[in-house]
């Protein structure tokens, strides 16, 4: 009898504690979306199948595969995997290929008829121009999403390697080159 009473008492006390904790420390919202969004490259290209980077971040937070972002490529996949504590898969090439070279849009201006279609397509307002006037791409603002290429009726937009410092030659880790070429004099 005493045992049962003790058990009852304990359950009551802990029940109260649990009830209080449940109300007091309830967590609302999902901060992980912001963290994922911060890791995505923000090209807003839609290659992942979502209209923009944030929607994809939200999708990842609710369980979508993390390997659908070609502009971010493997480094982005790795850092998201790191954040979420999962294994990093390789890029799903159904969504596009990773490129070593950062491309930006370039408008062949003599062919531009000033239709403003590319301006409407650009997710980051990187194209300057007005109706019936020539358009041009502000290189430093272009994310290289190539969304402006399809709408162009005269095919005057092409993707060229960026020249604003995004593609400068960088030092590479030695295992990416043949170390045996190094040629060292032992003295």
């Amino acid at each position: 009898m005493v045992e049962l009473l003790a058990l009852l008492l304990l359950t009551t006390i802990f029940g109260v504690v649990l009830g209080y904790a449940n109300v007091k420390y309830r967590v609302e919202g999902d901060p992980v979306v912001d963290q994922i969004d911060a890791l995505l490259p923000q090209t807003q290209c839609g290659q992942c199948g979502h209209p923009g980077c944030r929607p994809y971040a939200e999708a990842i937070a609710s369980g979508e595969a993390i390997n659908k972002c070609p502009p971010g490529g493997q480094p982005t996949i790795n850092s998201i995997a790191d954040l979420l504590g999962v294994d990093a898969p390789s890029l799903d090439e159904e969504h596009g290929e990773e490129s070593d070279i950062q491309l930006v849009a370039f408008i062949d201006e003599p062919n531009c008829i000033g239709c403003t279609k590319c301006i409407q397509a650009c997710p980051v307002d990187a194209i300057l121009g007005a109706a019936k006037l020539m358009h041009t791409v502000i290189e430093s603002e272009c994310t290289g999403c190539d969304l402006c290429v399809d709408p162009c009726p005269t095919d005057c937009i092409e993707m060229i390697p960026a020249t604003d410092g995004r593609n400068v030659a960088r030092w590479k880790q030695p295992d990416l080159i043949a170390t045996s070429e190094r040629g060292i004099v032992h003295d």
Partner: protein
Amino acid sequence: MIKVHTIPGGIHPETHKSMSNGSAAERIPTPDRLWIPVSAGLKYESEPIVNVGDSVKRFTQLTQPKHAFAVASHSPISGTVAAIEMRSVVAMPERQVLMIAIDNDGNNESERRAPMALDELSGAQILDRISRSGIQGQGGAGFSTQIKIAASKQVTHLIVNGVECEPYITADDRLMRDYSDDIMLGIQCIAKAMQLTQITLGTEDNKPQAFEAMQNAAAAANINMQWGVVPTKYPSGSEKQLIQLLTGQEVANGKLPADLGILMLNVGTLAAIGRAVVHDEPVTERLVTITGEACERPGNYWVPLGTPIDALQTFAKDGAKAQWIQGGPMMGVRVTDTTAPITQVTNCLLIQPAVKSTSEMPCIRCSACYEACPMQLLPQQLLWHAKSNNEQKLKAHNLFDCIECGACDYVCPSDIPLVQYYRAAKDELRAAESDRVRSEHARNRFEQRQARLERIEQEKIAKREARKKAAEAKKAAKQVDSDTTTSDKPKAGLLAAAMAKAETSKAPALSAEKLTKQVSNLEAQLIHQQQLLEEAGDDEKRAKIDARIKNTRIKIDQAKAKLASIDDQEQPNA
């Protein structure tokens, strides 16, 4: 002689200096064509101010700086501008910069210069002459000397860097021995222009002749100097290390030597300053040590800036197999394109025989690198984190304090190319940082665009609404007009229209809601009153309640009427 402090780390490789410092500097025959990079260094742009076909003389200015850190360049020879095109530089074969080709016409004409004695020049004039002579630091980094001086307003102490600690290189050694007068001139210029109180020469104990020559020259020029002879150890000639050796002070993280009141200039830079200020001659040539195991006639040579390395092929013993290195063996750059030109930072050309290759072995954490690091970093930990690209750890281990001197790499028994790992990691971190900034920027642009589109959409909807209401108001006003046929005052119609408009401009939805509530309330009241009526006993009471009921019914009818009118108005919108 001042007391010399110690620095941690450092290495003692074979110096190989006697190969090239045996005889005084010579001149090489001027090549037929020179290539002058428009942007000295790589980052900071200038623009050409000559055109193809122009004829130029020696010292003719060829480029005008566009960036504050850029310096002007001048023609080393007389001739014609043959081409202006993109070409490779030594430091980064993948990157090309704009270069100006000058064809030598052999006339050896110079522009008229305006030499002046130092006594006649004011401090401002001295600085002006320095700034237009295109002088870069000649120790190897190539930083604009004009900017370095401009950033050193509070400086009282000039340290003359004559340490030249890298193996093989003897250009500064020979310069101090043979051109100490020019160096003293440079020291005097700087001392006068910046009102310095203290001048110290730092040199290594393996250059006794140079040291003696400098002491004699200082005595002859009557300059009061301090003398610091540091033990031979690499990298004592690095700016931060030499300051620590001579003053015992450290340049705090993120600060400049100027914050300690110190300005350090290389002897080569000072010689260039001396000539630029007193003889009014911009930098058009420099002393280059050409040496190495595969070098014919190793020695020091005055080489016009812009001389393609190809023009020096005769120095290589076995041209096909030799490997060229620009700079010293510790911090130099492998020459992969021999059409690249000599620049102001080219203190040495090292010609080495092709050597047996080695490959990287696992790090055994022997800590030889840690013992060798002059910056007291932990190279083996940096390697570990660089391989796993751990940004946070790399920063915490102060990767960006690495001066890439190569001491760790030199001592590594496992032949690990440590410096390359660090360079790659630094580039990676910088790129990651700029990517972050760029993506943050793109995110803002995207979000602002979305917000703007939203706003425009809202505004469109609002305008459409307003137009609709205005049309209805007009309609209503017309109706009023046709109703009041007896009065033909247009004013009344206008007034009615205005009133109707005012009515509609009130939020109708809200009043409709209120009215509905009112109706239901009244109806409840009515039911209650009817109950009272049935219960009531005498007539007097009945009559009172009857009256109240009537009142309530009227109120209900009024409210219902109002409600109906509002409903009518809202129907077309729904």
